[in-house]
């Protein structure tokens, strides 16, 4: 297995820049997820690592070898495409053998690898069929199998679960995780689905507008988002954002004044905040509890109520019009129109300016 190193990668299509000065180091055996909205450049970055797109500036190193000048076949990477890209007129076995034959692997070695992988993925019975004769989920396994037999230094996945229905997606997610555990293969996985990213990744690379916003473990990303974008992209429902002013107080910790006048005491050091900046207050729904009318830091009227079974989400309109999503117990009795109190867990609050996020101190190790 191999280390991957990206150094100052940039790329443009004509005058449009699609990747802007990206650097990254992936450790051998790591499962890294490129996460981001459509158009952020994650697929392009993946394809550049594979050799399917050229690199305008920067270097790509795989396993201690510089590869950005090499054709895809010589980089020792394997890729699982979004639509699988299986060769339609070849049987599953021939699909898996094709790459190995092209590099002159011996016949019985090919057979051995195919047999092993087919057993691992439970596709032995499909070997003599053609891609058109098997289901979508089976095609996906074959695509993975085709990658596995090559025993590459690096596995690349380009949104492989997008074409599967929800149930199959969850199951396949689990299988990919198990596969990774067994094979201990360096893997880069591209997706726009944060659940996939959170559950599969050792580290997540969040991208937005052709740049990397944050690199970190799932919990780091979740609890200490580097920017407002990251905070809003990960977590369901989306984090609450309201513009605030920081009050002048004696304590070290910043006290945020919400638009409706209420105050929340955070655990963010005032000294870490920039001078005279416009700040946004961010807090997740699970850190805003519904309380009685007279209790809590502020109150408002319930606009919507979403009952999810294990919890209830209440959309509360504050006095001056902004909306906060709060969480209540699954059996909550709150109805639309009710006036409820909101209790903020100040320790879980974040502050964001245009550049970065500010979080509670000390950092929580997770």
């Amino acid at each position: 297995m191999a280390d991957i190193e990206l150094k100052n990668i940039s790329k443009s299509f004509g005058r449009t820049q699609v990747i802007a000065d990206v650097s990254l180091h992936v450790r051998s055996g790591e499962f890294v997820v490129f996460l981001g909205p459509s158009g952020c450049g994650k697929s392009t970055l993946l394809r550049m690592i594979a050799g399917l797109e050229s690199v305008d500036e920067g270097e790509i190193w795989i396993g201690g070898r510089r590869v950005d000048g090499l054709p895809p076949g010589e980089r020792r990477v394997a890729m699982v495409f979004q639509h699988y890209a299986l060769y339609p007129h070849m049987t599953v076995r021939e699909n898996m053998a094709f790459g190995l034959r092209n590099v002159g692997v011996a016949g019985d070695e090919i057979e051995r690898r195919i047999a092993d992988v087919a057993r691992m993925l439970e596709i032995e019975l499909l070997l003599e069929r053609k891609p058109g004769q098997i289901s979508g989920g089976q095609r996906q396994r074959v695509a993975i199998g085709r990658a596995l037999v090559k025993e590459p230094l690096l596995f690349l996945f380009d949104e492989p679960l997008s074409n599967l229905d929800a149930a199959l997606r969850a199951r396949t997610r689990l299988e990919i995780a198990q596969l990774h555990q067994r094979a201990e293969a360096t893997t880069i996985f591209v997706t726009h689905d944060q659940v996939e990213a959170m559950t599969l990744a050792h580290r997540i690379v969040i991208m937005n507008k052709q740049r990397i916003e944050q690199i970190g473990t799932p919990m780091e990303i979740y609890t200490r988002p580097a920017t407002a974008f990251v905070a809003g992209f990960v977590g369901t429902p989306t984090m609450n954002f309201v513009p605030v002013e920081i009050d002048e107080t004696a304590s070290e910790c910043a006290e945020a004044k919400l638009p409706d006048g209420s105050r929340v005491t955070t655990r963010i050091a005032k000294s870490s905040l920039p001078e005279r900046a416009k700040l946004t207050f961010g807090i997740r729904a699970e850190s805003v509890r519904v309380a009685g009318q007279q209790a809590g830091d502020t109150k408002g009227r319930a606009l919507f109520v979403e009952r999810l079974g294990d919890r209830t989400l209440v959309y509360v309109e504050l006095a001056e019009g902004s909306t906060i999503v709060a969480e209540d117990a699954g059996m909550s009795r709150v109805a639309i129109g009710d006036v409820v109190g909101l209790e903020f867990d100040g320790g879980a609050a974040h502050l964001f300016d245009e550049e970065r996020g500010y979080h509670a101190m000390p950092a929580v190790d997770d």
Partner: protein
Amino acid sequence: MSVAARSHGLSGNVLLPALMIALGILMLGPILWALGLSFKSNAELMVDTSSVFHSPYTLQNYADIMAGSSVIRWIMNSVIVSLGMMFGVLILSSLAGYGFARLEFPGRNIIFVLVLFGLAVPEQAVIIARYQIFSALDLHNTYAGLILPGLSAPFGVFLMTQYFRAIPKEIDEAAALDNASRFRIFWRVLLPMTLPAQATIGIFTFLHAWNDYWWPLISATNVQMYTLTVGVAATQINFAESTGLGFLMAQAIFASLPILVVYLFFQKYIIRAVSGAAA
């Protein structure tokens, strides 16, 4: 009958089918007439052609064909030329189609548009010059002389390019990651996916070559090199005086057989090719 079926065509219980069948028989009329004449002796027909409607009938005309006439030779020439042109066009247009669809080389788009313009050029605009070129190269009365002009037709290239373009690029990319060379991607991965287009081009080219008249007429002037189409024309020239109506019709029927047999076997593909290409 469903709403759609009723409105798609002109329906009418028994009347329309009966009318259509009658028209169908009418359509076959010329062939039936020729068939009838071919089974009568020349002598009888010379006296009175309405003798076609009653016996005696004879196979003598067909026997005469098998015995002496050059029809067999002409059929062989047509087979060689048609198959040769068909394979030649398939190979050239597959290679070119892949090149235009998938490979980037300088001027690719301009060159492709120029090739498309060739679709508008009729045979008459180039045939005189071609004749001179082939005269200079001494290629008249050869198989090459009959096959080569057909290889320049842009139709096959156009179709193959469209077809290759329609294949998702992911397949190429997967093959590139599988370490396949450009040619290997073409030969082992993409080409097998284009069989329907190959069938269409193959059929069209074969039919065109088989039925071509003007070029073989002027290029293959040696009786031994006639294609079937030219041969049938040659026997018509001295129509009335020559070998007799019965024999002539037997030749016409005999000459129709090969292509009609091909039509019978490949009717589905031919029709699909014609309607598909137009879509």
